[in-house]
């Protein structure tokens, strides 16, 4: 395990909005306050901060200035949607090494449509110079090419992938914090407005504003509700040099991840993955070993992904139903995992859940997201 004594001891969110009602720092502050209240940790005890957000010229340190925190550990991740998982992992490692006592890991976004459009045309140097001049259509255009390849190579269908969007929406109907809660049928999914063939509206996350935060500290502070990190891995820029691969870095570290956790995929009580598009969620199911490569279509036909289904998946509705709040999106699955493991899932509680996996994906560049991460969590 990553640490015997240190883990997640609380979590909190800032309410999500379709249009921002406050600044990025406002969302960060709201989530941090709620997370500390949930953990029962007081502000003056916090001396570590990790931030996942498009901060511009700001850093974790100037975020601390805004929040009035004095820090012995400050961290800002570099892996976009795969980053927040590793922020949590690195915070646990830092506390285990004694460099801080309590850390808040916060991910946030405050974006209107104009800000989002500007951001996606300039994700990286390669995107702004070699994709945006073609009218690449942002992440949907890129992931459409990836999905089409997966469909051609493995026979995956939209009917199969649609089960991810439909079942996650059913989970979201039991999550008051989700922005999209209206029931979604497979027909709605199949016939929605075309965005980038073969992707339609409900294949694509809705950019929004909000924040998620977790508090890392001594597990004995959690009153029996701590969450331990059993194992975690990250992989960047795999596979090398392939423009639109139908696999990701998860396949490289899958065996190590489960071996270090001492469990296999079947021992997981739920999976929360980075679901910017159902095809990427499907690839994480494959690459993390829940089914063989290329067989996710059949896997989706044979399983229900609802909180009470055979494969509880993105049990709060995921980004596809909650919305993608910038840097909060990679932390959404961690917060929901902690909620489930603590038995605080309410109407969407996975019965008897004490252990689960959360995976991340991000850092969109020339043809695909470059970064993959995953963590296995268990009740302490």
């Amino acid at each position, binding site marked *: 395990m990553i640490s015997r004594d240190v883990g997640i001891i609380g979590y909190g969110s800032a309410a999500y909005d379709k249009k921002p009602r406050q600044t990025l720092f406002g969302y960060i502050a709201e989530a941090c306050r709620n997370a500390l209240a949930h953990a029962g940790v007081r502000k003056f005890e916090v001396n570590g901060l990790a931030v996942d957000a498009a901060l511009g010229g700001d850093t974790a340190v100037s975020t601390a200035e805004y929040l009035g925190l004095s820090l012995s550990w400050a961290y800002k991740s570099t892996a976009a949607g795969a980053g927040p998982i590793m922020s949590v992992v690195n915070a646990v490692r830092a506390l285990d090494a004694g460099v801080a006592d309590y850390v808040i890991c916060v991910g946030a976004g405050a974006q209107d449509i104009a800000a989002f459009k500007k951001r996606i045309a300039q994700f990286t140097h390669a995107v702004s110079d070699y994709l*945006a*001049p073609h009218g690449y*259509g942002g992440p949907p255009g890129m992931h459409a*090419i990836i999905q*089409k390849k997966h469909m051609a190579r493995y026979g995956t269908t939209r009917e199969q992938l649609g089960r991810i969007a439909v079942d996650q929406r059913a989970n979201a109907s039991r999550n008051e914090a989700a922005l999209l809660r209206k029931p979604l049928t497979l027909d709605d999914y199949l016939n929605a407005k075309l965005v980038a*063939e*073969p992707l339609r509206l409900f294949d694509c996350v809705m950019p929004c504003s909000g924040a998620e935060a977790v508090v890392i500290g001594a597990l004995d502070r959690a009153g029996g509700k701590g969450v331990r990190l059993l194992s975690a891995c990250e992989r960047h820029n795999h596979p090398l040099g392939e423009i639109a691969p139908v696999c990701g870095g998860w396949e490289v570290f899958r065996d190590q991840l489960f071996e270090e956790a001492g469990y296999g995929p079947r021992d997981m009580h739920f999976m929360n993955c980075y679901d910017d598009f159902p095809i990427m969620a499907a690839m994480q199911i494959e690459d993390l070993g829940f089914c063989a490569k290329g067989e996710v279509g059949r896997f989706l036909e044979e399983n229900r992904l609802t909180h009470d289904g055979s494969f509880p998946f993105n049990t709060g509705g995921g980004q596809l139903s909650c919305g993608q709040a910038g840097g909060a999106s990679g932390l959404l699955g961690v917060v929901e995992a902690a909620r489930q493991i603590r038995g605080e899932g309410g109407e969407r509680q996975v019965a008897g859940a004490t252990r689960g996996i959360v995976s991340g994906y991000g850092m969109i560049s020339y043809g695909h997201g470059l970064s993959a991460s995953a963590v296995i969590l268990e009740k302490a």
Partner: protein
Amino acid sequence: MSYPEPTLTETNRPLIEAWRRGELVLQHCAPCGHIIFFPRELCPKCWSTQLEWRKHSGRGRVVSHSRVYSHVTEPFASESPVTLAEIELEDGGAMLARVIESVISAQAESLPPVIPAQAGIQKAEIAPGAAVELVPMPDAARYSLPTFKLA
């Protein structure tokens, strides 16, 4: 309204200037032979800085593609759908690029995907394996990066 342009640097200047003449040139690594796209100061495979620009035929095949209907910037929104494809070049190397289709419509997705070129039909539908070539001059001058059409 003109298309967005890549930032012109000493590193990508040969690519951009060749394309202004309607030609495709790519960096080849002298020691290891790796063909590099997008342009860089070093070979990402062996880290050599001995790179040579070589002319390519501009012919290739579609690996995967998408017609993109939802655009964030003009002038692409008014040209929707824009077809974007991963293209494998016949002289080696690969890139993502725009493909100009002669027949495009919102209903095109439901058409038969492949009309084999050997059947003698002139206009192939874009599909995996479809042959593409560079848009010739003077049309090429409209686009800021190498752009293809169905061959």
